[in-house]
């Protein structure tokens, strides 16, 4: 039975061909592909991992300092998002747990010291989550900036512009 399920899954998934069929051609422009090992940035025939938390993009666009600065900002924002989103979720969960426990023990769970703790945890959780979403969006925007600036610069350079 297990083998039959495994075969069915393989048959269902295999035709979807989840990886890039395109093979990048060596050239001065940066492109992204979905390789077997995960998403990759490819430039000048060299591949760099495209994890938002890693420095692959910064390495790939290092030939254009301004693009590199954008890529580093993108990485920093992604790291901040990876910290603040789980932190916000934990604080929110803590606030909710405190509220539920207080509700079970008291008639007025939002009064006194426990109420202040509940509200503080929830407010801090919401703020951290909102900040995390902001950092994630900002990271994506800086990534677009890095790629577009790099490719524009390469286009102008290959056309003979300084």
């Amino acid at each position, binding site marked *: 039975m297990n083998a039959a*399920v495994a075969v*069915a*899954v393989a048959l*269902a*998934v295999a035709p*979807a*061909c*989840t*990886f*890039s*069929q*395109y093979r*990048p*051609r*060596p*050239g*001065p*422009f940066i*492109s*992204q*592909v*979905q390789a077997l090992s995960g998403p990759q940035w490819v430039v000048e025939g060299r591949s760099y991992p495209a994890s938002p938390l890693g420095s692959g993009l910064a390495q790939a666009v290092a030939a254009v300092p301004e693009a590199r600065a*954008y890529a580093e900002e993108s990485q920093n924002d992604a790291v901040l998002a990876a910290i603040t989103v789980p932190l916000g979720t934990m604080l929110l969960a803590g606030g909710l747990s405190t509220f539920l426990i207080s509700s079970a023990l008291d008639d007025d769970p939002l009064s006194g010291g426990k109420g202040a703790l509940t*509200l*503080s945890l929830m*407010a*801090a959780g919401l*703020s*951290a989550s*909102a*900040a995390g979403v*902001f950092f994630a*969006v*900002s990271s994506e*925007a*800086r990534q*677009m*900036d890095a*790629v*577009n*600036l790099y*490719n*524009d610069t390469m*286009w*102008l350079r*290959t*056309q003979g512009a300084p």
Partner: protein
Amino acid sequence: MRAAAWTLVAAAIGSGCASTRYAPRDLPYLKRVQRSNEILWQAGTRTEPFNPFGDGLARMVADVPEARALADEARSDTWTGVLLAIAGPLVMSGGPALVFATADDPSDLSSGEAILLTTSLLGGMLMTFTGLAHSVSARSRELDAVNVYNDTVWERHGLLPAPQAAPPP
């Protein structure tokens, strides 16, 4: 404390930090850009909305048939992925709910009920995994469409070496 935190977030967003800062040139290769907080595909001065469910990408790359076919595949995979990702959990939860709601004795299921229970759990799981695979595939096809289109543009402008000829059979 709450007001201070919200002020900080609002100031950061209001300052435009979360938007792109670089305004790309109107060069003919295909790229993603952000204009007035909307993400768009842009090639030259043409733009289309960036929406994996729509046919904006297919329209952008329409003059390169191979890229267009890949863009169409990406959209189709996106829809399939989302539908299966919704249907899978529904089948996984609906099947057992139906079995236990209608069984005469939920602690002693008949063979038919047991088969329905197993089939819905495994079928739902299979649908969910397949949906996930289609979603990853959609992203891959989207990247392929952009890369194939851009290779054509760069080659047309003499910015890429011609592809190597296939070896003789």
